[in-house]
């Protein structure tokens, strides 16, 4: 299949799991024109966004980077490299911070025990959860829980804006 043929296809015609990556792979080799390259970047972005959406939707399930790469039909190494180039962090870090963000939400809004919160957001070990939470937030889940509630906002906004980021700016407001 040539890149030109791919360029004629709209994204809407490729259902989940049916991604056409040839364009992107061609772009990697540096053998295509600017418009083909641009088309390839858009298809790649959309694919990475789809993988990120899967993490946002199914963080509570057993989900890891190799299985995500399989779901979107790319190699693990390609997935990690491309995701990082697209969003500025690795998929593992994105998923970890998504789970911590959802844990923060449950700690604030529910009476679930810390162990139940840990399991509810997809961690399988309390030790890993507590360590990861403290590494990212700077305090323990139990201590975090005592903070004030937030106003109700659409979940995707909360997930987008309160996920503790590695980019620095969110860290400054989250850690007192």
């Amino acid at each position, binding site marked *: 299949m040539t890149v030109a043929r791919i360029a004629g296809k*709209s*994204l*809407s015609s490729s259902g989940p799991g049916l991604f056409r990556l040839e364009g992107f792979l061609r772009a990697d080799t540096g053998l295509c024109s600017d418009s083909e390259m*641009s088309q390839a970047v858009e298809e790649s*972005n959309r694919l990475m*966004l789809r993988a990120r959406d899967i993490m946002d939707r199914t963080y509570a399930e057993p989900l890891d980077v190799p299985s995500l790469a399989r779901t979107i039909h790319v190699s693990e190494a390609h997935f990690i490299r491309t995701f990082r180039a697209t969003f500025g962090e690795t998929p593992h870090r994105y998923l970890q911070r998504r789970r911590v963000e959802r844990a923060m939400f449950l700690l604030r809004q529910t009476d679930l025990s810390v162990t139940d919160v840990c399991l509810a957001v997809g961690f399988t070990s309390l030790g890993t959860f507590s360590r990861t939470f403290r590494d990212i937030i700077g305090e323990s889940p139990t201590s975090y829980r005592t903070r004030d509630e937030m*106003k*109700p*906002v*659409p979940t995707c906004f909360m997930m987008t804006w309160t996920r503790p980021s590695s980019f620095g700016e969110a860290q400054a407001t989250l850690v007192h």
Partner: protein
Amino acid sequence: MLNSINLSQIYVLDQDGALDFYVGKLGLEVRTDTDLGFMRWLTVGVPGDPNREILLEMPGPPAMDEATAEQVREMVTKGASGGWVGFTTDDIHRTYEKLAARGVEFTQEPVEQGYGIDCGLRDPFGNAIRIVQRTSGAGDTAPGGQG
């Protein structure tokens, strides 16, 4: 002073594909689809809500140079564009089932909130869309206006 919002805009990367999605799947109706010569003016709206429509606009020359359009397309496809639309419904679960059956890509299943039940999805290009069934009498802190 101002008394309503009648028109808003999002960038799409393919207007026919946008029609397939916004009309064919989400069930909106075409309000205007006309060739202005320099652009295809394409708007859609919710049936029964005649005073508000959304312009489905292609980024590109002469509104912006090709390099800028390329940046816009890259931002849209990574979900980082400014485009964002919120809809209301009377029955969120039924709407969710119906759209899921049509192959719509959901980012979030219906979740109960103080102001209502809402869910999230993406259009084929990467724009975010939310649908909410408002709780009657929800307070004015509710996103999306009064309940």
